[in-house]
């Protein structure tokens, strides 16, 4: 496989059979269309390329900018495509809640504009909501924006009608599957593939998956939001079902751990929704099997993108998946009594001690707070870093007395208790912290 451009690597993704031992369906072959293997990482590569391709050369000549309302994958593909053609890219969205994707887009040179939240005090007369402003700016005469308009652009659907759909038929030896299951974001992939499959066999049944209303699954819309999409037509789908975030993550873990498919949450939602849809069908087929002999069906779902970008999303919902082994010398090991009886010293005595005993004063606050105001002569070791250091042992000699300071004397008490337990003979926590120090009128400096 030798290409002249990375864009030639878009499409022709594998169709992989899911092991029946994993999904438990006995009369249905379930296949995953691995869109995560597109070069920029998702199913959106196809649509982005198909929408932008005809206009890129012209836009490049005018020094323009590609703009799209996108929260992730389309933006990622467009940012790369724009860069390859000497253009800049801007994404406008209120849905980008995944920090890794935001960072990746910035890394790719994208500009991101986030739409503001809803007004707390309702003003029914507002006419200048940012989305309206965005569209107004696009249509201003002389503007050099290339707006790919993925929610309304028929070339989005077309990319899947001419690419994704026919590829599935080809890989099923010229047959359309009995079932096709896909998540609904822009509706481009589900609509395009459904159209291609039905052209082949009008009996294909299509299930659309939306996010449950109270849940957030990145890339999938809720049923209400789907109605805002120009490409969405409820008539495309035989059923529209909702999937919850927890279910999507469960499905994702199954694909990740048992199938070796490093799918993201939407792939997980599609797998979960597919199995839920197909299980009763499978049981019917089993009954008929007993009476009339075997009949097999096939089903295809789309794996839109990869797991790596969603680690913080998953961590927030399933912290249990990230349990780390316990470390030595951690403040978490201390008993309440140990913390309560940790050696401490009040502001007035601490001032005297600093003057005579020359303790090492360690300020546990952030460098920004430390830089703003601190006790003269203190050193700054942020508590998180300090904790790391302690896992390895005492970071200073036992012969040097130590005074620990934090904002209110709570963290410093924990650390003083820990250092004492680790064998330091003369460590104390500043009672009431830097706040008590300030309130007592003791000097703070910035140097």
């Amino acid at each position, binding site marked *: 496989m030798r290409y002249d451009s990375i864009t030639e690597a878009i499409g022709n993704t594998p169709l992989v059979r899911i092991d029946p031992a994993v999904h438990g369906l006995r009369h249905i072959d379930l296949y995953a269309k691995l869109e995560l293997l597109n070069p920029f990482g998702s199913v959106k590569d196809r649509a982005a390329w198909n929408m932008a391709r005809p206009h890129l050369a012209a836009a490049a000549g005018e020094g323009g900018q590609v703009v799209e309302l996108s929260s992730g994958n389309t933006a990622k593909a467009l940012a790369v495509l724009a860069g390859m053609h000497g253009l800049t890219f801007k994404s406008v969205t209120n849905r980008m809640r995944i920090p890794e994707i*935001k960072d990746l887009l910035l890394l790719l040179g994208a500009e*991101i504009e986030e739409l503001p939240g809803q*007004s707390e*005090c309702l003003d029914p007369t507002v006419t200048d909501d940012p989305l309206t402003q965005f569209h107004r700016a696009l249509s201003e005469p002389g503007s050099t924006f290339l707006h790919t308009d993925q929610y309304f652009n028929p070339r989005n659907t077309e990319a899947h009608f001419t690419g994704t759909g026919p590829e599935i038929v080809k890989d099923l030896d010229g047959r359309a599957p009995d079932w096709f299951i896909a998540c609904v974001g822009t509706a481009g992939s589900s609509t395009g593939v459904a159209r291609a499959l039905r052209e082949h066999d009008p009996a294909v049944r299509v299930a659309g998956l939306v996010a449950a209303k109270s849940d957030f699954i990145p890339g999938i819309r809720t049923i209400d939001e789907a109605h805002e999409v120009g490409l969405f037509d409820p008539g495309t789908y035989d059923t529209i079902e909702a999937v919850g975030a927890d279910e999507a993550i469960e499905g994702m873990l199954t694909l990740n751990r048992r199938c070796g498919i490093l799918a993201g949450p939407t792939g997980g939602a599609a797998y979960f929704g597919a199995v839920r849809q197909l299980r009763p069908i499978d049981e019917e087929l089993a009954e008929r099997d007993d009476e009339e002999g075997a009949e097999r069906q096939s089903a295809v779902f789309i794996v839109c993108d990869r797991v790596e970008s969603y680690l913080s999303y998953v961590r927030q919902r399933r912290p249990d998946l990230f349990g780390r082994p316990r470390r030595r010398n951690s403040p978490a090991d201390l008993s309440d009594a140990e913390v309560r009886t940790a050696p401490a010293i009040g502001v007035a005595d601490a001032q005297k001690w600093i003057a005579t005993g020359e303790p090492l004063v360690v300020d546990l606050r952030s460098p920004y707070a430390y830089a703003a105001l601190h006790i003269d002569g203190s050193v700054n070791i942020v508590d998180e870093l300090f904790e790391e250091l302690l896992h390895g042992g005492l970071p200073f000699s036992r012969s040097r007395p130590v005074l620990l300071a934090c904002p209110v004397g709570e963290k410093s008490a924990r650390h003083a208790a820990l250092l004492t337990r680790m064998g330091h003979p003369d460590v104390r926590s500043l009672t009431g912290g830097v706040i008590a120090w300030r309130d007592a009128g003791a000097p703070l400096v910035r140097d």
Partner: protein
Amino acid sequence: MGGQPLFLEPRLESRLRSLLNVPGLLHTLTEALGSPLNVVLPDQLADNLQQFRSVYGSHHLSGQVYFAHKANRSSALLRRLAATDAGVDVASLGELQHALGAGFTPGRITATGPKNPEFLWLAARTSVTVSLDTRGELEQLATLVRKHALPRTRILLRLSGFEASGVRVLSRRSRFGTDVGELEPLLEAVERHGDVADLVGVAYHLDTTSLTEKATALEGCLRVLEECRSRGLRPRAVDIGGGFGINYLADAGQWNRYTTQLTEAVLGTRPPLTYGGHGYGLRSEAGTLRGTLGLYPAHRPVAGARYLDELLAHPAASLGGRPLAAQLLEHLYDLHTEPGRALLDQCGLTLTRVLEVRDQETGGPLAVRLAAKAGDVALEEHGVLMDPVVLPRDPTGRTAAAGADTGREPVTVHLFGNLCLESDLITRRTVFLPRRPEPGDLLAFANTAGYCMDFHATRAQHQPVARKVAAWQEGDAWRWCLDDQYWPTTPVGGAQ
């Protein structure tokens, strides 16, 4: 209408629920004082304050909670709050006078909002802290202080137009506050007027439900305070305004079902859910939904003190990623908040009497006319969708009078006001009620104390404006007095 009734039942916590469980008292009150009638629950305000305080406590933050007076004009509420350790945020001369008269000492008052010279003078005269919107306001204040030999005034600078690094957060433009881009000349003016004005901190109030925008603003304030310190000024507080919101509805499922059905009604795939097919900002263009839903997010699991908690836990990306609370604490700053709506959660209700119940087309919604106008229960004005609670006048003998089984089945109604105006609808929503109301019944609109109770009520139409009573519990019994008669001593002293 077809289908299941789409109820939007109000969230009722124990105190408000307990009051609604004594309909006899509520009927007596409206008979004596007329419909509409507002009831406020001062003790609830004190409880809500404690919730905010406990969020401060869990983050070890000091600073003041200033109740935003504009959200309700009640004297009882203000006086009850004066008996706690909270502050009050006043936005007019009248509110300042009210706060001083209710017992708030100047150290517990901040003056915000647009100010006329009288307001500014009284604020400076009494030494309340003034949150300044613009450089012009600072100049005006400095001139007043000099000319009238007033004491040196504590000031906050209210800022706007914060931008995040990396990602540009488009913020709703605010009329209020000075753009941070104009900081330099503003701080120069502060330095120039150092003899008459003492900078205690910076402030913002953003009208948004978005945590990210507020986090961006708070982070921006921290950077501005650092700039102030590097100039030798000694600020020590950030005031993050209000807007923490209320969760109005009992059940998320009802809200989700209702809003989905509303979009379908707008798209024409189910019968309308509003008077005249009103779409609350949504419309259908060739089968695609356009516009934005102009409704308050009535079911908001994260509201009030919990919202503050989440904001404080938000990482400050440009300052090393530690949470905002840790940043405030480590920088030794006080946190000030100005909750209005959120502090009034569960603090009151509006009672309205049913005047007439009329059948329209068969099977269509009933027309229910109330002894109140839209401005008295300004749910619609604020986009809050919530069912009223029906309090029958005669809870036992109703079916005999109404005949057969009417009054037992859910009904759909349109709620009209008592003005001779086509537009006087209490709500444009088609409301589902668990049973048919009868003339003489009361419809109680719960949780209206924040803005919905009297913000839009006027006397212009020669209709009575709602009177207001304060109610509190003594043992198992509910006691009440006129709003104006309430003092924190009343419950124990017995002014009755």
